[in-house]
């Protein structure tokens, strides 16, 4: 018999737990004007860390704005922004050690930037050119880097959640002082993999942070049609897991919560669930038009909670930044992104030979045969296969 039943109080008439009985406070540190709430406990942060966080925010804003534009001009085929969710993503990554393994969903490129992914690397992936670390195999925004401990994004939702449990368990077995962090949306938290992953992490004592970006929508589906009950955080205690809910537009609240979650996960070999309450300010992706399912008023209301602006004001208050430095950074990154974009779009696409690589550790005989036949065919009809015909 488990602890829960041996220690339980007994009653002798029917008494249900109320479905609203789980009340979850929300951690807020920064106010809209960039000053801290009275009595708020700040995270561990110095000027250098704050500047890195701010720098990542500005880069991400610029990247998102420019690449969405590039998608509209037909230069890349697809794009997804994280506009409005920068504090959730950057605030949490900034709490980690570089050896901690990140398993992201797809909207967390700011975390990868924080780790050091270069503008050139972003562009190479989006243009699917031969310098892309992922060899041009996946749609734009599916980044990954072994060197930066950032596992490559997979489109099927929530598959990374039980994987993160396994990664964390392996870190524990390898006696590394590191954890895994797993990002996902509140929509993905409906998948079976979410429940399997959390349950296994708690039962097997995996040092992993499950970080849910609750941004209000899964494509067109609002949270009311995604879950009943008190958000994603309420599930944490149900799985036997330390849990916290934070204001996802508050950089310092996210940073503070993640710093402590990391320490707890490491010291106790245990998972932690963080739910960041935020809002997807942009469309779901470049293929989506949110005007079909939500109002301009709602979006305008959330513009008031801009996480990047709130953190900037805090830095200005601290004397660590001024408006001119902030504006100059935008200019610098706009130039850099545009320059790298122009380089990346001219780099050749992966060679045809690459088609059969990495399916297995080495191509099987049948793959070799299929490639040889394909080449013979393309040589016969070079005009029909312009991407590869010139370079066989």
């Amino acid at each position, binding site marked *: 018999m488990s602890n829960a039943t041996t220690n339980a109080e007994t009653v002798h008439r029917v008494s249900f737990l109320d479905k609203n009985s789980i009340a979850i406070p929300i951690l807020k540190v920064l106010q809209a004007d960039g000053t801290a709430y009275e009595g708020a406990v700040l995270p561990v942060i110095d000027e250098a860390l704050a500047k890195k966080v701010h720098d990542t925010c500005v880069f991400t804003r610029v990247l998102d704005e420019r690449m969405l534009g590039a998608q509209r001009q037909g230069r890349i*085929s*697809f794009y997804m922004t994280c506009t409005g969710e920068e504090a959730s993503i950057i605030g949490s990554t900034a709490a980690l050690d570089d050896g901690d393994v990140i398993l992201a969903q797809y909207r967390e490129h700011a975390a990868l930037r924080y780790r050091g992914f270069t503008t050139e690397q972003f562009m190479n992936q989006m243009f*699917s050119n031969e310098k892309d670390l992922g060899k*041009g*195999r*996946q*749609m734009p925004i*599916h980044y990954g880097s072994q060197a930066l401990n950032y596992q490559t994004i*997979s*489109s*099927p*939702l929530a598959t990374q959640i039980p994987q993160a449990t396994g990664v964390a368990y392996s870190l524990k077995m390898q006696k590394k002082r590191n954890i895994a962090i797993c990002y996902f949306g509140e*929509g*993905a938290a*409906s*998948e*079976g*993999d979410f429940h399997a992953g959390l349950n296994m992490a708690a039962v097997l004592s995996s040092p992993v942070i499950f970080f849910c970006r609750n941004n209000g929508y*899964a*494509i*067109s*589906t609002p949270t009311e*049609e*995604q*879950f009943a009950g008190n958000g994603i955080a309420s599930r944490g205690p149900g799985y036997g897991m330390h849990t916290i809910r934070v204001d996802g537009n508050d950089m310092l609240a996210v940073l503070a919560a993640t710093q402590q979650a990391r320490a707890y996960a490491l010291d106790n070999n245990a998972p932690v669930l963080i739910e960041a309450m935020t809002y997807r300010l942009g469309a779901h992706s470049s*293929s*989506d038009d949110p005007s*079909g*399912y939500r109002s301009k008023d709602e979006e305008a209301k959330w513009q008031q909670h801009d996480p990047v602006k709130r953190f900037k004001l805090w830095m200005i208050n601290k004397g660590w930044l001024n408006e001119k430095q902030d504006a100059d950074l935008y200019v610098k990154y706009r130039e850099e992104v545009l320059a790298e974009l122009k380089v990346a779009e001219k780099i050749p*696409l*992966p060679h*045809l030979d*690459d*088609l*059969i690589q990495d*399916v297995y550790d080495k191509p*099987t005989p*049948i*793959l070799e045969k*299929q*490639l040889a036949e*394909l080449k013979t*065919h*393309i040589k*016969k*009809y070079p005009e*029909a*296969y312009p*991407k*590869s015909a010139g370079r066989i």
Partner: protein
Amino acid sequence: MAEMNMLQAINEALSSEMEADQKMMVFGEDVGHFGGVFRATSGLQEKFGRDRCFNTPLTEQGIAGFANGLASNGMTAVAEIQFADYIFPAIDQIVNESAKFRYRSGNEFDVGGLTFRTPYGGGIAGGHYHSQSPEAYFTQTPGLKVVIPRNPEQAKGLLIASIRDKNPVIFFEPKRLYRASVGEVRDGDFVIELGKAEVIRQGTDITLLGWGAQMEILENAADMAAKKGISCEVIDLRTLSPWDVDTVAASVKKTGRLLINHEAPLTGGFAGEIAATIQEECFLYLESPITRVCGLDTPYPLIHEKEYMPDALKTFEAIKASVKF
């Protein structure tokens, strides 16, 4: 008759069936007010209410299990899986449950009123997670029917037949044709019988067999062959499970040759099954080996999509080789 694209035809089929059958419900990720990411279910929630057309939470496993439950208790369930690539979280519910409800209960229970609709296939620069053709995973499962239309008219008639069929059906929709394929569609409700292939072009030298979006490619290849004096008979299989052996065998006995084309990888693809059966049925009539023009044995690539595709040119080359054999 009205001219429309495949999405409109699917929408019409759903709408007219919901009108006729009060027990029918349509659900899946984003299918409610938004009308689905491709807009196949547009307007249904407005017409039939939120109880009958609704968004589900984001869980294919849940959608399929829920659909099994509805159908096992007498409802008509039409579930959308947003992309066929994302049907795999539901595979246990579909393969072990939908397919075996009737068999395992000795016909005490069945989920005959269940249809899964799902967009499949490539040609849209979607890379390997938005382009797969997973039909063969399901054709190997007894108890499921697998149906794939090639144009708007077929989509409407086959979808209505699938919804009315007394067995669970997986209805794969060729997403690259959703808007690209436009044609006349009969008014009102009509059905195209499941399990029947259609000879869409008569010919004498070789039979070309395919389904879904590949039919367009086979017709183009047949046109190219015609210019070389080769007469192709073109057949749309339409239902893959159970498939129409008789129509295909009759054609091959006439032409003496068979070419099968599908977008899914060659190895383990449904073409292999067809080739083996036709070889048994028509051995003495065959004048050349049965040919397969299929996707490569790689995940569906992003950059080399054109090279990967079993396109008209590759089909044309295979036709010539077969005739010359």
